[in-house]
């Protein structure tokens, strides 16, 4: 029998017992739907987790901080590495690394028009900024040759207050509990003056002026509260701050000076970790970009092996992925049981069908059907039931998935506006394909035993009982 005839005959046979076929297909449909929806939840939750992590820090970024690496027992690993140009070169050589930018870090008091506030300033190589996963929502990023310009995160504006806001805050009307949403666009093209004191002589101070040329994307993320300036500007500021400095053990960390009042400005350097470096020319940290998420944790590990104190959001990813895999396995298991029941249903239906068609099978054998014809016919019928259940189950799964997402968005979240569309149920193409192939396979496997019985059937017994 050729394949087309096989399909036609199988379809005819299924169509003969519409109700029974329908009910068996329904079983597979429910099984497929439950397994797909369950898996889609696992996948969707995992994807959401990943997205929310990505919001906090790019998964292709690694920060290399000052200080030593310690193993689990608290023993230092290797020598503490100095974060200088040599280190930059060394890290660039690591496979999977695409960009390395040195970075400085300052926290200072600043003024923007009538507003005063604090500025968390990061200096990095301006020509590399666009390669470091930064994106401007307004204006532009830093570029090579930039001087005295800033690109600010969206929440930097929140740290600036005018006189009335300040007074209101003092009366406790605007505590940190109630964030006043301010428009970050307000900062665009503004001049920001940062006042810096010499570290060794507090009376010596200098003003550094910046112009805001861009605002970063991302409302609540790693970069939202920081302002970025060219590395050279930060180097100039540091040079002024450190003039006349003797070698001090805590040179990297400036103690906080003075109480904050009107004109006084306090500047502190925030080390990402306690520095034990004596070299004041060292960078505060290095920003490393990897070629892709799949490289990040591996590069991270290489860095730690080399004695660098590296940190990346991707380090946490593995744990999260393990969790979401576990969730998927549990949910998938529940679906698998449903599908197993459906498979038993197929087997049952096919055996019943053989009882009914005993005579017919006998006749087919007598008039020349080969073993393989009978075998394929029953496998095809069973596979078709699986396929139909798979197709309709998949359709239902898409519907159910939409419904779940809709409900979650509108009811579970309490109608809160979400920054991004949340899909806790996600059916990627591979899952759809898997569901189809799997349901056909289930059908065929469930049909193996009945098909075997049909082949074994004696044609004589079948045609004798007339």
């Amino acid at each position, binding site marked *: 029998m050729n394949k087309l*005839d096989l399909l036609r005959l199988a379809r005819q046979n299924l169509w003969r017992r519409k109700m029974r076929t329908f009910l068996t297909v329904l079983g597979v449909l429910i099984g497929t739907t439950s397994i797909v929806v369950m898996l889609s939840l696992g996948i969707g939750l995992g994807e959401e987790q990943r997205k929310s992590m990505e919001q906090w820090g790019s998964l292709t970024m690694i920060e290399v901080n000052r200080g030593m690496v310690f193993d689990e027992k608290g023993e230092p690993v290797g020598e503490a590495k100095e974060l200088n140009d040599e280190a930059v070169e060394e890290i660039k050589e690591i496979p999977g690394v695409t960009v390395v930018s040195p970075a400085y870090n300052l926290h200072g008091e600043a003024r923007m028009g009538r507003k005063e506030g604090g500025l968390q300033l990061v200096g990095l190589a301006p020509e590399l900024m666009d390669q470091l996963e930064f994106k401007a929502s307004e204006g532009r990023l830093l570029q090579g040759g930039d001087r005295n310009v800033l690109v600010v995160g969206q929440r930097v504006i929140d740290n600036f207050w005018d006189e009335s806001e300040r007074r209101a805050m003092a009366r406790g009307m605007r505590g940190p509990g109630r964030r006043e949403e301010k428009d970050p666009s307000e900062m665009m093209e503004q001049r920001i003056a940062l006042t810096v004191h010499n570290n060794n002589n507090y009376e010596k101070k200098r003003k550094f002026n910046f112009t805001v040329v861009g605002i970063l994307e991302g409302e609540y993320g790693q970069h939202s509260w920081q302002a970025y300036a060219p590395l050279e500007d930060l180097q100039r500021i540091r040079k002024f701050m450190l003039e006349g400095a003797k070698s001090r053990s805590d040179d990297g960390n400036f103690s906080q000076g003075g109480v904050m009042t009107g004109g006084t400005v306090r500047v502190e350097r925030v080390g990402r970790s306690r520095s034990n470096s004596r070299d004041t020319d060292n960078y505060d940290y290095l920003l490393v970009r990897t070629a892709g998420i799949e490289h990040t944790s591996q590069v991270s590990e290489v860095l730690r092996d080399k004695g660098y104190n590296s940190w990346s959001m991707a380090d946490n990813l593995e744990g999260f992925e393990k969790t979401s895999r576990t969730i998927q396995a549990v949910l998938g298991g529940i679906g698998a049981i449903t599908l197993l029941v459906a498979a038993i249903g197929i087997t049952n239906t096919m055996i019943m069908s053989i009882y009914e068609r005993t005579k017919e099978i006998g*006749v087919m054998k*007598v*008039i*020349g059907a*080969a073993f393989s014809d009978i075998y394929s016919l029953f496998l095809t019928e069973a596979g078709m039931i699986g396929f139909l259940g798979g197709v309709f189950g998949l359709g239902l799964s898409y519907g159910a998935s939409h419904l779940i997402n809709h409900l979650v968005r509108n009811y579970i979240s309490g109608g809160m506006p979400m920054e991004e569309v949340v899909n806790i149920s996600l059916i990627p193409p591979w899952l759809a394909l898997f569901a189809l192939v799997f349901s056909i396979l289930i059908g065929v496997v469930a049909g193996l035993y009945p098909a075997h019985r049909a082949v074994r059937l004696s*044609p004589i017994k079948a045609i004798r009982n007339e």
Partner: protein
Amino acid sequence: MASLIEIKGLTKKYRLGQEVITALDNVDLTIEEGEFLCILGTSGSGKSTLLHVIAGLELATKGEVLLKGVSITKMKERKMATFRRKHMGFIFQSYNLLSSLTAIENVALPLVFDRVNKKERLKRSREMLIQMGLKDRLRNKPTEMSGGQQQRVSIARALINNPKIIFADEPTGNLDSKTTQEIMEILSEKVRNSGVTMIMVTHDLNLAEYADRVIKMIDGRITSIVPNKKVG
């Protein structure tokens, strides 16, 4: 004339619990190519069993069946299926049509198993059914046809692959006398015109007149062989 089928010492026993039934008891028989053989006997005499063993549908307990000198008793079931498909046709008392298929689909079924393409097999089936006088019943299901019509469909199915041998087991057992006559005319004419070998089993003495030769069976044994003198 070369012998088409040679049967030597064929014995078939069934075991029913403690009891052993001898359905065929040391049967010797030679069947010539192109002859119309009638096996006559009462119910339970072993006619159907003989037919089944010759067709390779049932295994003999003892003895041999040679088809053109080749033993089919030793043939593998698989090979036997192919052989039936290519060279044998079957007609049953209860027609044994597939109830879900139309007349034309039933007739075409052996060709489906023989991988003949759809267009060709429908063409051949249609011609065959027209020959059987069923021009208006091509698309009817068996339940929509009379017994005589169904049996004609089943004859068409038996003939569709141009078989060398046709086995007919009580082909008119369920039919009235008029229809019986019609069916027998069709069958005997087919033997005369196409040179096919026909082995027909019946308990009806009246049918014997259509055959070239009649053998009588009693209790699994052949008791007499009577050549029919027929003109035409």
